[in-house]
């Protein structure tokens, strides 16, 4: 695991402070979480952070907490950190938009269902539903770079890090 790097050297000078040699392994964990956070446009921890947290937690042996407590707290942690992330949603032809909490959903299916209820329409996914007629709607989003993209191509977690707003457009535009 590389948790304690001092163990690999067989002779440790007693004048060396242990923290100097041991600190590096734990320091690495710290940096990893910071790096991941820098890549996101969301200030609070997103699900990607929780992913890396989870894999570290599984193999982590510090602080000394029993596994059940550890996993219960991990759940709690992710639940509480997950606050909300509201984005604007517009439907083409409708001037007044809505707002939707993306963090309240776990996947694209949930999102599409909610939007379908909100806008009283059926939103279709091109790859699943085959060829679309001009009267159908599809879901698009504006990403960090300002481009308008079709929803559903990238993994959900990645989508969350890059989406800024949603738009339901008519199929003939795509």
């Amino acid at each position, binding site marked *: 695991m590389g948790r304690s790097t001092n*163990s*690999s050297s*067989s002779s440790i000078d007693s004048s060396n*402070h242990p*923290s100097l040699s041991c600190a590096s392994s734990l320091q690495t964990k*710290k940096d990893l979480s910071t790096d991941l956070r820098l890549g996101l446009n969301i200030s609070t921890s997103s699900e990607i952070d929780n992913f890396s947290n989870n894999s570290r937690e599984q193999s982590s042996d510090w602080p000394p907490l*029993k*596994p059940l407590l550890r996993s219960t707290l991990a759940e709690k*942690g992710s639940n509480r950190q997950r606050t909300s992330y509201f984005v604007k949603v517009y439907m083409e032809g409708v001037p007044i938009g809505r707002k939707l909490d993306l963090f309240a959903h776990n996947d694209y299916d949930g999102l599409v269902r909610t939007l379908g209820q909100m806008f009283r329409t059926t939103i279709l996914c091109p790859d699943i539903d085959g060829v679309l007629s001009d009267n159908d709607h599809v879901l698009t989003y504006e990403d960090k770079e300002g481009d308008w993209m079709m929803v559903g191509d990238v993994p959900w977690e990645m989508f969350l890090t890059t989406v800024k707003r949603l738009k339901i457009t008519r199929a003939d535009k795509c």
Partner: protein
Amino acid sequence: MASKRQKDSPEEEKKQASSFPDEVLECVLGFVKSHRDRSSVSLVCKDWYNAERWSRTHVFIGNCYSVSPEILVRRFPNIRSVTLKGKPRFSDFNLVPLNWGADIHAWLVVFASAYSFLEELRLKRMTITDESLEFLAKSFPNFKALSLVSCDGFSTDGLKAIVAHCKNLTELDILENGIDDLGGSWLSCFPENFTSLEVLNFASLNSEVNFDALERLVARCKSLKVLKVNKNVTLEQLQRLLVHTSQLTELGTGSFSQELTLREYSELESAFSNCKNLYTLSGLSEATSLYLPALYPACVNLTFLNLSDAALQSAELAKLLPHCPHLRRLWVLDTVEDKGLEAVGSSCPLLEELRVFPAEPFEQDVVIGGVTESGFVAVSQGCRKLHYVLYFCRRMTNSAVAAVVKNCPDFTHFRLCIMNPWEPDYLTKEPMDEAFGVVVKTCTKLQRLAVSGLLTDLTFEYIGKYAKNLETLSVAFAGSSDRGMQCVLAGCPKLRKLEIRDCPFGNAALLSGLERYESMRSLWMSACHVTMNGCRLLAREMPRLNVEVIKEDGSDDTHAEKVYVYRSVAGPRRDAPPFVLTL
């Protein structure tokens, strides 16, 4: 049927005529319960040894590899209750690989022939398979109580066998185990005419049980005293259960958050009002200030409140505690913060034990939230009877610890975990040596100590010099040289368990304890500077110790990454997996 003692030869009978008749001695010894006292009794003389072994009905084995089942049954013929502990404690924190051992099966096979009247089995950190559970259920017709804490190897299918076959079951206590949860149908396997249950704890199982089956079970088991359900049981379901269980002394609730109507809420409240006999309350996951007040009537006689599943805020805790005037033990999450601990100090004058667990243990950058040295001091100011503390925090100061032990000099268990390794005194930036120094100097009754923070050998000099009653010591990321460990081994005469990880202690330290290890239960050292040669030397010098090294993949051959040393009358393990080397 208890085995009877054979009559002694006529010669011996003459000798004994003047001393206490055996039967009377055995009867008297029947009142000696503590296993340590019994151990002392057995050392008095041969007669007392024999009287003791015939009259003993409960045996406690702190390390399953220290003795073999054959030796056990030879010495004690009339055992009804066995408590066994297996893996080293650090296995709780993933430091011991899977399949390390501590499998109960070999014991069960021997018990099946020698102790057919076995009633109770309590296991901690052992491996038990579904096959073993089935074997257990079918081999002991009088079997009554099964308690599995931090065990692994089984699934809920194994529980089905116990539930279905043990007609006289009074206790089923399943706690914090690494098991395969294949669903909640095991609970439905209690026969419809089964009524003897007194203790049921399935709080740490994840899957949903059939609520109707649970309700029927609880309704017909009139002697039920302890009921701890899992998170899937809702508040509304809990209320239905409580209607049948006014005699409960320990309750673990399910999830404590649900949309309740006003009527449902008042039904819940009156259900809790009926629980006037509750001493212990736990569960309460997702409890919010909305429904906590329903609990208040049930808290009037509470002595133990376990809120480690309920992320309460300080205000919620402050409102709850005045309803628990007899509280002696409190477990909380650090979401209550220092303010919550101030409330503890002011509301719980009888408090003896406090455990504060971290809500976000893996967040290293947390700057707000959690508890600090002020919370610790605040508790000590109000709770002068405090003698057991387990405190997870991110910062501490030497002066705070000094203030705490000045207020509470009677600590028997002092476990302080400053979560960032090598963390110095928050104010002075100095090592935390003086903190633990003042603990061991002041708390003369100290039995258990866990140290943390930036510590030099000075801490261990203090421990060796002052901690004369210390039995268990846990050390992580501490010390400067071999001298630290040497001081402890030389200075603590009552030391039984020493567990060390990530410290700069090497062979000299390990070998300085040569004379000590036979009077201890065990020593664990991982990620220290001990080498294979050092371990071999120890093994050679002390043949009655088992010196085991756990080999990790990819570690170099000279370094002993994980060392486990323990005394044993059973010789080296015969069931060691390939990665455990017995030297």
